[in-house]
Each structure stands twice: as structure tokens, then as C-alpha cells.
């Protein structure tokens, strides 16, 4: 008991037909990010610093749906959102509607540390980013060919697509997305899902918890749509007892105030970390699919999901390590 712990996720709800090559790429990325976090923890970085640097890495890599590689809005643009919370004092920061900031999670952190507010969005967030001198790029930077292809499929199916990740280039035979795969998420007739919000939760060697989540959101979403990732208490939460980051059907995560509820059942019902995660996944997701990663101030790590698969990796100071996608 005690000691640091870290968990990373790349999204809940994975296509069971995801080609092996993509599964491998995902696991490699998760491993790399986990190791980055572990090194930082071994160098005694604080939990809040670690979650930020790990999520930055996930945002920068185009594989998952955050930062570069974000899902596209109905207009073919990228609108990113993120939130971060420091269990010490429950300080938090969030951003939405970010279009030119290379690392939304860092902007969220600046909102927390350098502004009098907790949440900034759209042009106000971009303006703040300029004032803070963060790295900014054209919106095109975030757009990948894969996602342009996916948006097209989504529009053809005329439904909201859950950040589907099967590559469209060179694998046309697997892309009968609209027809072959009847799996659904988000309560709508969507053809395929493989959502990939990214997130990281950490407890450092001082027992401080932190959580961070970042996403491009739903493929083909209405411009201006805000999901659970920037919503404190829904997609992200950290307090004295734990840090939580959720992923999956945003609307279900919001209604279930999932991240807060893990902490609440620990605080108010005295459940342990894994029990709390299991409880929330089982009881708080009415008609929704989602997953989460969590750490406790005691150095434990836990995850849970009711979707098919969740890209995840976790490690604790006593040597436990796991990188996985399926159950």
C-alpha cells in the first residue's frame, strides 16, 4: 500500500474486428506513455505534472482521438476539449472549442493556474491561449486522412460516428462500416464505434491524486457540441481519495456524473477503489457504454468498463504493470 500509481487510457468501446496491426500500435503508444509517466513519477514529479505530460504525449500522437488525430465535426474541422483536476484542493481547469492550440490539456492547466476561472471555451479560450503564448498551429494540423475518411463514412451513414479507428487507407475491405458491424454506442444508430478520448490518472508518492482527460469528441458532431471530457465530475475528477478519468458515451457519462460518483461512493459509502469503480460502472450507466481508469491516494489503480474493450495501461510502484484492450 502506498507508493505511486498511474493509469492511462485511449478510449472505451473498441471494434472487435480492429486489425491486429492497429491493436499493436495502440498498445505501443499506451506503453510509451505509461513509461513516460513512470519515469516522471520516479523522478518525484507531482501527480498534476505527470497527468499533464502524459496526456500531452497522447494528444501529440495522431493515433487516438485527441489533439492531432481528433475526430472531426460535421463541418470537417476539429474542436478539442480537455480538463484537468488536482486532488489537492480540487483545483480544476477545462477548455472546449479549441481549434488551434497544439495541446489542449496544457491550456486547461493554464486556465486552472493562470486565470481566475475554471473553464474557458471557443474564442475566449483561443484568446487566452494567445495571451499565454502556448504553441498554436493551424486547425489543419490536427486533421488526419483517416478521420477525413471516417467523417465521410459517418455522413453517408448519416449518423454520429463514435471516433471509429479502423484505418481507411489500404484497408478498404474492412470498411463496410455501415453494413457489417451492428454494434452500437451512444444510443443512436451508429455503424461502428471505437471512441478514443484519452486520459491519465496518477497518485504520486506523496499520495496526491490528479486526473486529466482530452478529446476531439464525437465524429460528425454538431459544431459547438461539448461532451463529458471537459466537464468536472463527469469525465474528470480528482479529490483527496482518488483521481478518475472516463471515456465512452459522453452523454451517459454526464448524466451519470461518473467521475464524481466514484469519489462519492468512496467518501460516503466507504467503498474501496475497485469496488467504487465497479459500482459506478454497473449502477450509474443507465443505457450507456463507458469505461474509466482510477487511482486512489493509497497507491491503488483500478479500471472498469461495460463496453467492448478499453485501450488502457496501468502500473504501480510495487512493479505491477498491464497494457490491454479487451476484457
Amino acid at each position, binding site marked *: 500500500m502506498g507508493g505511486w500509481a498511474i493509469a492511462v487510457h485511449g478510449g472505451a468501446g473498441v471494434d472487435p474486428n480492429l486489425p491486429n496491426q492497429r491493436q499493436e500500435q495502440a498498445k505501443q503508444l499506451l506503453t510509451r506513455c505509461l513509461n513516460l509517466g513512470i519515469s516522471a513519477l520516479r523522478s518525484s514529479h507531482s501527480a498534476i505534472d505527470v497527468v499533464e505530460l502524459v496526456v500531452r504525449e497522447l494528444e501529440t500522437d495522431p493515433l487516438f482521438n485527441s489533439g492531432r488525430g481528433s475526430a472531426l465535426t460535421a463541418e470537417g474541422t476539429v474542436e478539442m476539449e480537455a480538463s484537468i483536476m488536482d486532488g489537492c484542493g480540487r483545483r480544476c481547469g477545462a477548455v472546449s472549442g479549441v481549434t488551434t492550440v497544439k495541446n489542449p490539456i496544457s491550456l486547461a492547466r493554464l486556465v486552472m493556474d493562470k486565470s*481566475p476561472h*475554471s473553464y474557458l*471555451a471557443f474564442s475566449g479560450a483561443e484568446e487566452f491561449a494567445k495571451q499565454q503564448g502556448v504553441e498554436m498551429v493551424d486547425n489543419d494540423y490536427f486533421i488526419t486522412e483517416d478521420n477525413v475518411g471516417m467523417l465521410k463514412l459517418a455522413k453517408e451513414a448519416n449518423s454520429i460516428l463514435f471516433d471509429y479507428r479502423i484505418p481507411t487507407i489500404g484497408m478498404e475491405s474492412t470498411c463496410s462500416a455501415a453494413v457489417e458491424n451492428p454494434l452500437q454506442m451512444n444510443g443512436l444508430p451508429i455503424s461502428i464505434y471505437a471512441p478514443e478520448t484519452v486520459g491519465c490518472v496518477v497518485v504520486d508518492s506523496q499520495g496526491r491524486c490528479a486526473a486529466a482527460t482530452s478529446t476531439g469528441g464525437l465524429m460528425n*458532431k454538431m459544431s*459547438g457540441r461539448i461532451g463529458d471530457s471537459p466537464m*468536472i465530475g463527469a469525465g474528470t475528477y480528482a479529490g483527496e481519495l482518488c483521481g478518475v478519468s472516463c471515456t465512452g458515451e459522453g452523454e451517459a457519462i454526464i448524466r451519470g456524473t461518473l467521475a464524481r460518483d466514484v469519489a462519492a461512493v468512496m467518501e460516503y459509502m466507504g467503498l474501496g477503489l475497485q469496488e467504487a469503480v465497479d459500482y459506478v460502472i454497473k449502477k450509474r450507466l*443507465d443505457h450507456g457504454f463507458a469505461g474509466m481508469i482510477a487511482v486512489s491516494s493509497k497507491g491503488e489503480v483500478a479500471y472498469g468498463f461495460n463496453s467492448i474493450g478499453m485501450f488502457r495501461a496501468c502500473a504501480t510502484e510495487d512493479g505491477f504493470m498491464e497494457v490491454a484492450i479487451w476484457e
Partner: protein
Amino acid sequence: MGWAIALHGGAGDIPRSMPPERREPREAALRHCLQIGVDAIKAGRSPLDVVELVVRELEDNPHFNAGRGSVLTSNGTVEMEACVMVGDTKKCGAVSGLTTVKNAVSLARLVMEKTPHIYLGFDGAEQFAREQGVETLDSSHFITPENVERLKQAKEANKVQIDYAQPIQRVEEEEESASLPNGDSQIGTVGCVAVDSSGNLAAATSTGGLVNKMVGRIGDTPIIGAGTYANSLCAVSATGKGEAIIRATVGRDVAALMEYKGLSLEKAAAYVVGESAPIGTVGLVAVSANGQVIMPFNTNGMFRACATEDGYTHVGIWQD
């Protein structure tokens, strides 16, 4: 059991020295909105309909910081936000960054009912409003001279204030000042919660936010579980310092204490207001499925009103 309704016009540092010509219109507005809500409940309207129509009325009233009468951003513009939530299904809708929509709460409801999403902000929300054909007005409609003045004072004091116009003199002088230019504390956020005699619950909140807020700043009002929350046990609408309400997940915590610790509505709300959030930062109105109502606050005052089926009514500003 039985129906119950409660509404608020904002919590904050409301000086008791507020002159009658400032106090009376607000009290009258609270009474009027309460009556509208009570009439609607008695007429069998759903709690969702009731909270929406009460909040619409509060938004239209320029004395409160929502809709017309919203406080201004640092750019001198309005950016309004609102949220609704229905208890039994936990369906919800939220909007932020509205500049021309006459009734933000109604647009929030449309997001809930007409889109697959929960929350739309800024240009996307305005676009949606046009598609839905809701009433929009030039944003000058929402701006009142009082708020222009408030913004000016805030800029002079160079600080963000909780939607109240304790005219900022020196930081040390926090209590009443006889020389207030308008002696008035328009506290912001308005909200309403209601339960019908079958135990169905709903909550709605609406606001212009903080005076001199950064453009794009989102507060607690549209954050499900912070400023607004409803489930099968209770409905909550909070007001005060947005950043504190978000951090303390006020709305959700009242319900969570009832659910996970078995506390009564009263104890749960008292705990959240008394212990979870720092003094001077929060007030809330809440009703439970069995018809209880509570309106606690840890600020100087909160504009509020409530009524229950057994005939109890209360309109107040300060602690009684």
C-alpha cells in the same frame, strides 16, 4: 408528499442596506414568479414545464443576472448560459455563450429534446437556435445601464466580482457602504426546482455569469452536477461563485449524500452548503421527491422563494 417548488434569483453579498426602491421590485418579482410556478403546478404542468416557465420569467426580468439584465463580460458583451435536467430519466440540456437568444433555458431544453447531445456552446448554440426558430434579439436587448456601470466599476477595481455591485471601494471595506451609487446587489444566476405530487423532479438554472468575466468563461450553471442537477431523489439549482460550485460538485453532492449516506434533503443540503463549499460562495434551492424544500446559503443573502402543497410559502433575501 405533495408538490413543492423553489426558485432563486442569486446568492451573494447582498447588503441589508439595500434601499427599498431596489429591494421591492426584486421581492415582487420573486413573488410573481413563485405564483406563476405554483399556478402551473396546480394546473398539472410537468415539473420540467414549470421550471422552464419560471426561469423564463426570471430571465425576462432585468433585475436578475440572467437573460435581460445579464452581467457583462470584460468586452462589454453578454454571454448567457443555462441548463435543465429531468429527475427520473436524468436527461439534461445545457447551453453556453449565447448572445442573442431571448431565453437561454428554453434553448437548453431544446438541446435536450431535439439533439443527440447534451451541451452546445457559442456559435454552434446560436446556430442551433436559429435552426429551431427560437426568439432571438439583438444583444443590446440584454444589456442594462446598471450592468454597464457594474462593469465599469469592476474594471476600475480590476477584479472579477460575483455578479454583485457592492460598489468596489477598497478591498478592506466589504460590508455596507452608505455611499453606494446604487446600493444594489444584483446577484446572479436564477434557478428553479420543482416536484409534482407523483414525485417527478426537475431543475433549471440560467445566468449571465460573472461581472467582467473573460470572454468564453463558463461557470457552474451549465455543468451537470455542479450548478444544476436532478435525479429520482431531488432537484437542485445552485448559485454563487461558479468556480467553487464546480469544484464542490454541489448539485450532485446534495443528491449523493441522500443516496449514499441516507441523509435527508435538509441535512444533505446543509452539509454541502455548510461544509463542502467555502463560506460566502454558495446558495441553493432544492426539493425532494417527497415534497420537501430547502433553500440554504452561506453568503450574506440569497433572493429566494418557495411554496409547498400544504400551503407553506416563503420569500426572502437574508437569513431569517
